[in-house]
């Protein structure tokens, strides 16, 4: 048999209630492969609560606490304190929340958890809108994207505001580890989970998670779209350990963002000018990352 490049264990079960081709479902599957069975998940209201638990079933082969959407950060601090008080050894406490529950509604709880230096992993799976309630814009929705609350027409061209930079907010708290992960690159994904597990303290994952119905693309394209997101610089892959940033995937020239945008119905209305603006912003951000990586490497940070 060809050697497996990611763990064989399946802790996410089939029969779950995600849409066909769901990026967050694959994100969870890969995450649990790396985390293993001694994991306690805290999941707030989001698509994943619905995906996992038509009562009395569960699609998750680990302990799960179902919590309020504002409270993921606070709940992982509480779970860690409880695990310590009970002298539970080798358990990983993991918060798993959507972008709405992280970038907007649960931001203060996340900040508190990072500032308390809770020994836990906080995961934001980013499908770039409130999907469970029917595609409302979130702080993490990219500029120009159609959502039901940022419609297109009558002079409105999708979301007017730029995407909130959650990684920058997290990094301002000096976490022990922070990384961007993309299920289209399972080996990079798995290596980052393993790396995070070897480190103690507050850790953060920003996971790219395409949503076929919300972004309006064919369910077969989830993986290809994710690859395009990273290789066009829309979603660069990097990790920050002890404040040092390292880019984990570089392919030479970035692909044009136009290809990424054209693949999704939520960007269909964008014209050449808007595409050019997005292209120059992505380029500038990528150059900034390269500079930061160089500076961190030379120790001038």
């Amino acid at each position, binding site marked *: 048999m060809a050697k497996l490049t990611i763990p064989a264990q399946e802790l996410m079960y089939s*029969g779950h209630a995600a849409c*066909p081709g769901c990026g967050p479902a694959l994100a969870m599957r890969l995450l649990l492969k790396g985390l293993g069975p001694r994991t306690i998940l805290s999941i707030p209201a989001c698509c994943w609560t619905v995906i996992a638990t038509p009562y009395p079933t569960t699609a998750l082969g680990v302990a799960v606490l179902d919590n309020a959407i504002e409270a993921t950060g606070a709940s992982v601090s509480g779970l860690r304190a409880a695990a310590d008080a009970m002298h539970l050894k080798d358990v990983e406490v993991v918060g798993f929340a959507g972008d709405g529950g992280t970038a907007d509604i649960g931001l203060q709880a996340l900040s508190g958890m990072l500032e308390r230096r809770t020994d836990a992993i906080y995961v934001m799976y980013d499908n770039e809108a409130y999907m469970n309630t029917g595609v409302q814009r979130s702080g993490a929705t990219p500029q120009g994207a159609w959502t039901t609350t940022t419609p297109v027409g009558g002079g409105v061209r999708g979301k007017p505001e730029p995407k909130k930079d959650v990684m920058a907010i997290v990094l301002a708290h000096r976490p022990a580890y922070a990384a961007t992960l993309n299920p289209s690159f399972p080996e990079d994904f798995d290596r980052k989970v393993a790396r995070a597990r070897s480190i103690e303290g507050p850790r953060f994952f920003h996971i790219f998670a395409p949503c076929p119905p919300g972004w309006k693309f064919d369910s077969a394209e989830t993986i290809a779209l994710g690859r395009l997101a990273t290789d066009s610089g829309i979603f660069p892959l990097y990790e920050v350990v002890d404040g040092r940033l390292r880019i984990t995937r570089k392919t030479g020239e970035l692909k044009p963002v136009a290809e990424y945008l054209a693949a999704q119905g939520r960007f269909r209305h964008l014209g050449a000018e808007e595409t050019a603006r997005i292209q120059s912003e992505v380029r500038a951000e990528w150059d900034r990352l390269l500079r930061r990586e160089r500076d961190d490497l030379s120790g001038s940070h």
Partner: protein
Amino acid sequence: MIEIRFHGRGGQGTVVASELLAQAAFLDGKIPQSFPFFGVERRGAPVTAFTRIDDRPIRVRTSITRPDVVVVLDPGLLRTTPVTEGLTSGGLLLVNTPRRAEELAAPPGVRRASVDATRIALAHGLGTAMLPIVNTAVLGALARATGVVTLEALARAVEQFVPARPSENRLAARDGYLGVRNADPGAAAPAPAPFAVPAPLDRPEGPVASVSSEVIHTAAWRTFTPVIHLDRCTKCNFCWKFCPDAAIELDADGYPRIRLEYCKGCGICAAECPPKTIEMVAEA
């Protein structure tokens, strides 16, 4: 009172169909009620919705278990969902299918009607071949087959309440009205195939979900099925790695096998297979 149960898939406009019918009945001067079954309305997942129509206020608020009419928006559901459950002699089964109504399986004494709503919807540019929006064509057929609403009221309801392409939808309703085919009442219906009744789940004590979701089979969500041509398989396991439903397992020799009870037909495995040895085949 007449009770109508709709069966469709998430994304096909099933819930909208039940609401539009109620709106049309209201415009006809009736007192209607409509609501969906509160479940997982994911794209492709089986969806159920209900409409009641009466001349007097309707007090009952429960799901419809003994319908007078069953409307099936997707013929694939006939194989996977017991759509005729509770339908008895004198009731009506209306199915969107290119087949003749005489071929439809139904309990004894049930009237049968069919309409090729998919063809009608596509002719009017409603939806895509993979996901045609058939609800208005089906409602046209329902209006003719049952007389519960007039075509005029249906057309007005479509104009007022359908957000996208109201005129195409109105034409689809008219074509459905004209295109419905009733089975010869004398023709005996094939009996519905028995459905395996899933074993009752163990209800745990307290609010703890502890039964694996693998008791739930999601095969019914699928409209296309992946078929692996193993002769060209290089055992790279990409298909296994990327399946969001963990519906692919590897055998002892490293060959992939699709667990069809769970595969939702997303097409990722076919798209990602390097030698393109997985084919997506339309469900019959």
